[in-house]
């Protein structure tokens, strides 16, 4: 199930803070970016953004994941040139994709509310 695989991936990374905090801040936005990309590409039936990476099967280990992230970063740079991962609607770099979580007043992600 998409949500369980996503949360498993997230909790793996959350319990491995070194992965989140390795190097500069640059990695962190890319990492969360790749995680959200995995979620949206597998759950949404229509997704406009083309991303060949997301069709790959989920990496087995964190090490592979690390490599994959770096590959993605490189690919991104090659594909998009100077463009950074900016959500034009919210102005956020590397933040969660999709509609603004607070658009209806509460804090919402994919329909689930966590604060109001």
């Amino acid at each position: 199930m998409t949500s369980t695989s996503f949360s498993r991936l997230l909790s793996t990374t959350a319990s491995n803070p070194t992965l989140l905090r390795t190097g500069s801040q640059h990695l962190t936005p890319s990492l969360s970016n790749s995680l959200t990309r995995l979620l949206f590409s597998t759950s949404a039936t229509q997704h406009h953004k083309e991303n060949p990476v997301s069709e790959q099967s989920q990496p087995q280990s964190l090490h592979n994941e690390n490599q994959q992230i770096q590959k993605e970063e490189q690919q991104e740079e090659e594909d998009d040139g100077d463009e950074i991962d900016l959500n034009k609607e919210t102005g956020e770099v590397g933040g969660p994709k999709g509609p603004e979580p607070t658009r209806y007043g509460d804090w919402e992600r994919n329909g689930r509310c966590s604060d109001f």
Partner: protein
Amino acid sequence: MTTCIPAGRGTLHYRVTDYKGRSCSKGAWVSDVSIKSYLQKDLSWSKRVSKVLQIHRSEFSVPALCKNRKLFKVISSSKKDGTTKYFDFAVIGSGIAGLRYALEVAKYGTVAVITKAEPHECNTNYAQGGVSAVLHPSDSVESHMKDTIVAGAYLCDEESVRVVCTEGPDRVRELIAMGASFDHGEDGNLHLAREGGHSHNRIVHAADMTGKEIERALLKEAINNPNIFVFEHHFAIDLLTSQDGSDITCLGVDTLNTVTLEVVRFLSKATLLASGGAGHIYPKTTNPLVATGDGIAMAHRAQAVISNMEFVQFHPTALADEGLPIKPSKPRDNAFLISEAVRGDGGILYNLAMERFMPSYDERAELAPRDVVARSIDDQLKKRDEKYVFLDISHKPKNEILSHFPNIASMCLQYGLDITRNPIPVVPAAHYMCGGVHAGLQGETNVKGLYVAGEVACTGLHGANRLASNSLLEALVFARRAIQPSVDQMKNSSLDLNASNLWPRPTLPLSLGSNAKAKILSATQELRKELQTIMFYYVGIVRSTMRLETAEKKIGNLEAKWEEYLFRHGWKPTMVVPEICEMRNLFCCAKLVVSSALSRHESRGLHYTVDFPHLEESERLPTIIFPSSPLNSTWSSRQLQKQPMYQ
């Protein structure tokens, strides 16, 4: 315009009531141990400790960056009758408030962080929204204050609001310095979202797991700190207090190690209570299982003043497991809230007869404000005596539903519900306790040496209703403010190593046969559900004097029935088992909510009663509960170590 009632300053009138509805003065009782003798002992705690530490004294002033070197010696004693641990500071709870405090006081002495389960298991961890703070040049403290006071229905303490809104930004910056990483904008500045009720963008967040990120960062720091000792799976039973004249002082806390089943007594010169909320007095709550109001109950038993317990924040639409085709094999511990976005996108509410009811309550129908929707759902459930209502989005295109709400879609699908074809069963869920242990501006309580921060505290910030994302901020600010008074208290404390003998110890139920124990646990589980049902039905979103009085009677009877059952099966007053301790805490908190609700003769913020459906200016005061005389109290409302010798 806003008249606010400062906490703890006695010039203005308070409405006071004890939990039985009688007004009374601070409790005074005859202590069953003599405390004078220990105060006169020659060797005080601090003197003895300083002798031991003389050799290390030069290292005191070194900034605490020596990660692998302990700066302070921890004293622990194990005798035949049990273990006692001595710390300068004790922290009950390992959420944002507890850990923030611990990290700071660790510069001055040893710290025990006592937590009921795993350290990360707390309300903070589930707070996925964000932290609010004035961090944008076009924003202002005044604006944040105004938003808070408006949301709080003008019941907030203005000074508390000012302090939190002013100090908030620095506290958030410190969090970042401690390693919490929040989302940024293109310009490199923190990305600020704007949540309901806020007039500026000011919500700092980390993707969609802000609380988890904060908890991770703080816990990492705490674990690496040589002066902080984390005691997980230690259930706090009762605060240890002593009385000197009219002063009550907290000297530590008794706990039960739920893994080794050993009673561990902690003596500390200063104690921070940061034990979080009490969502589990209701059957449906977003809070994890640990949130059973332990701290509020312990504080009340320790004669601390409690306030504003009637203000319980509910969310109108949580996924109702009872309505799912495939019931979850075990009950969901914390509720799955269905966002307002579903209604915003066109979701319709129906009762179980498939009647659309919102238009009869409000012309805005499903788009009415959240509290109107909550009351309407509550009213429908009561009128029709049903367990849930339906939220239907299936009339929308399937691909739209799946792309907007994949989380709900997959969750429901797991239990046999396809939301693109069928309605979603929903029911209101308890989320946050605005009330709690009455705190001053430094997190101090009327019990010396006892400080509070976080959800367990009632600082006056939230008033009658919490503004979104203000709770993490409140925890940060008050945890920090409690530092200086705690340090002063610690330095002036003359707590003696022999103080451990002042109070009888909690005991394990060794004399109980396994049959009796099983019966007691089973009965407790049943009665817990019954208490939750009473609370949901009689002390929910829409209240009435009759319902509240009924609740009071029913809860009183239930408690008496439970205690009688316990003692009939061989339970002794000093025995401890986690489920039993939780039950007595739940009873305590439930009663506090009911009596507070009964005393408010108006509707304000989260407290709505059909008998007084409007705001009443003369009622615009906090509800304060003083401890009552222990003479006619129940077992649950007395500290374990203060049980009468003869039953």
